[in-house]
């Protein structure tokens, strides 16, 4: 997605001189196409995320559209107050681009995992929050939102190859994207873990269980109406995200169920414990936290059984 982001931003910057790109010293082998094409509109501000966002706020006040690039956890947590007191409270079009949601920086260790970024960003009503599921959707989402008033948080994945089956690069602000339809189980997901979800749905289909699977990429504005309509049709929904279970899609879905008084039971698949000292590949970590396609299949079967037993 980060490659798709850079490519898309270069295209937009060709026709939009207000676009600037700032990085906190990250993006080696990713941002060069922009840096080389627009050397006077590219700023490596150094390893200083607070200043990165503060400078972007000053630029945005003067009418620029600054994109602030870094690893998701660094650009969301360290300068969080600068994001709030800067572009959010002052309603300025700063774009925060966080790369590597969830465990994408697996071997790098826990300091590099973004497990609460979407949650803390979603708390802010004045911040658009976009978490695409693959690089095609990332491109569509950036094209659909780059000019939107106010600040935006983009949570991007590193992967520029995997495509989520059935998504076809679709994105619409405030809407979900259905990638599969079925009758037995609803699965709602966010970010690049969607490809694991698609695999799990296919495996469940082999066992005669058909799933409706939807991607929530527009986290804020939240697709409340779409979610409510779907949740009203299913007694059981799984939410799947490479994120702590509190704060992001699991919480959003639970809020919709509660606020609309729906009868759907929500099972949140996500990270429930602080990562221990061990690291490993993204696949290993997904499996450890019940987010691999195999683990998701097992959870779905177990919860469907619970559902059957209770009705």
């Amino acid at each position, binding site marked *: 997605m980060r490659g798709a982001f850079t490519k898309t931003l270069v295209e937009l910057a060709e026709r939009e001189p207000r676009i*600037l790109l700032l990085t906190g010293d990250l993006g080696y082998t990713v941002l060069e196409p922009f840096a080389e094409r627009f050397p*006077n*509109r590219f*700023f490596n*501000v*150094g390893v*200083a995320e*607070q*200043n990165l*966002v*503060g*400078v*972007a*706020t*000053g*630029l*945005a*006040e*003067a*009418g*620029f559209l*600054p994109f602030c690039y870094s690893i998701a956890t660094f650009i969301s947590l360290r300068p969080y*107050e*600068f994001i709030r*007191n*800067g572009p959010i*409270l*002052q309603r300025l079009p700063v774009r925060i681009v966080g790369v590597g949601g969830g465990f994408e920086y697996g071997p790098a260790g826990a300091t590099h995992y973004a497990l609460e970024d979407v949650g803390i960003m979603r708390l802010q009503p004045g911040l658009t929050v976009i978490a695409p599921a693959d690089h095609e959707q990332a491109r569509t989402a950036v094209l659909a939102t780059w000019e939107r008033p106010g600040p935006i948080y983009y949570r991007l994945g590193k992967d520029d190859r995997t495509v989520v089956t059935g998504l076809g690069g679709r994105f619409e602000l405030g809407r979900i994207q259905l990638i599969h339809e079925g009758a037995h189980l609803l699965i709602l997901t966010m970010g690049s873990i969607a490809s694991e979800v698609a695999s799990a749905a296919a495996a469940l289909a082999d066992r005669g269980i058909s799933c409706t699977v939807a991607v929530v990429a527009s986290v804020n504005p939240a697709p409340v109406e779409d979610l409510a309509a779907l949740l009203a049709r299913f007694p059981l929904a799984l939410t799947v995200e490479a994120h702590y279970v509190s704060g992001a899609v699991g919480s959003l879905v639970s809020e919709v169920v509660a606020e609309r008084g729906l009868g759907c039971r929500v099972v949140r698949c996500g990270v429930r414990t602080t990562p221990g000292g061990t690291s490993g590949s993204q696949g290993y970590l997904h499996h450890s936290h019940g987010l691999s396609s195999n683990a998701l299949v097992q959870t779905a079967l177990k919860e469907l059984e619970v559902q059957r037993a209770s009705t």
Partner: protein
Amino acid sequence: MEREAVQGPPLSSRQIRRIVLDQSKRAHVGHIGSALSIAEIMAALYGHVLHIPDPGDPDRDRFVLSKGHAALAVYAALHLKGWLTAEKLNTFCADGSLLGVHPEHALRGVDFSTGSLGHGLSMGAGAALAARLRHSRRRVFVLVSDAECNEGSLWEAVMFAAHHRLANLIAIIDMNGQQAFGYTDQVLSLTPMAARWRAFGWDVQEVNGHDVAAITETIAGLETASGPPHVLVAHTVFGKGVSYMERQIKWHYWPMSDAEYRQALDEIDATP
């Protein structure tokens, strides 16, 4: 490359102090000492330095009150400039007012919201970079407190501005030696302040922060078209002009009683 302020009547620091006292008393709030210590800096900036044909002019000079808790002194200046009506000024700290203890960008004349220390210089650096990218001669002034230099984020901005040689960025340090819960040299020493900024690559000027002419002339002498960014270490007295507030920690937060208010007015009025 001096840029002329839009001429108007000179602002009197005594009038600024008077408004600070009146509004603080009416609203029964503190932060009086912090606002009093910048009265001459405000008088110099808004009376002589800032090029602001209109607060909505996109090419105006920018001002960031990074020590946002002294916003009342800015409101006083905006009022004396004619950009803030008495009626609005009198809503200071009232329900639904845009005039809180800390400045809000939504108020005409306030360029950036502040209140959390260590934030303003970064935004100012961005505003200065924006001016360069727009090929504008406009300048950006950021008033920071000395204690604000405790914040690591401030030094990120100091490094950034020096690296990019933002000559159009002028920081002013209200060097009153006090912070909320003690004296700066006792809480977290900032000495030597000037040498620290100089070591980071800034042009450093030391000035009496209660001398409007000195502040004005020092700024007029700065090269803002090229070269390093500038900082004025403005030596001030916390609570300046009210004897019982001067250099007293209590007056960071404390509101005035009726008797204290009357004494303060007497002392301000007796000032030449």
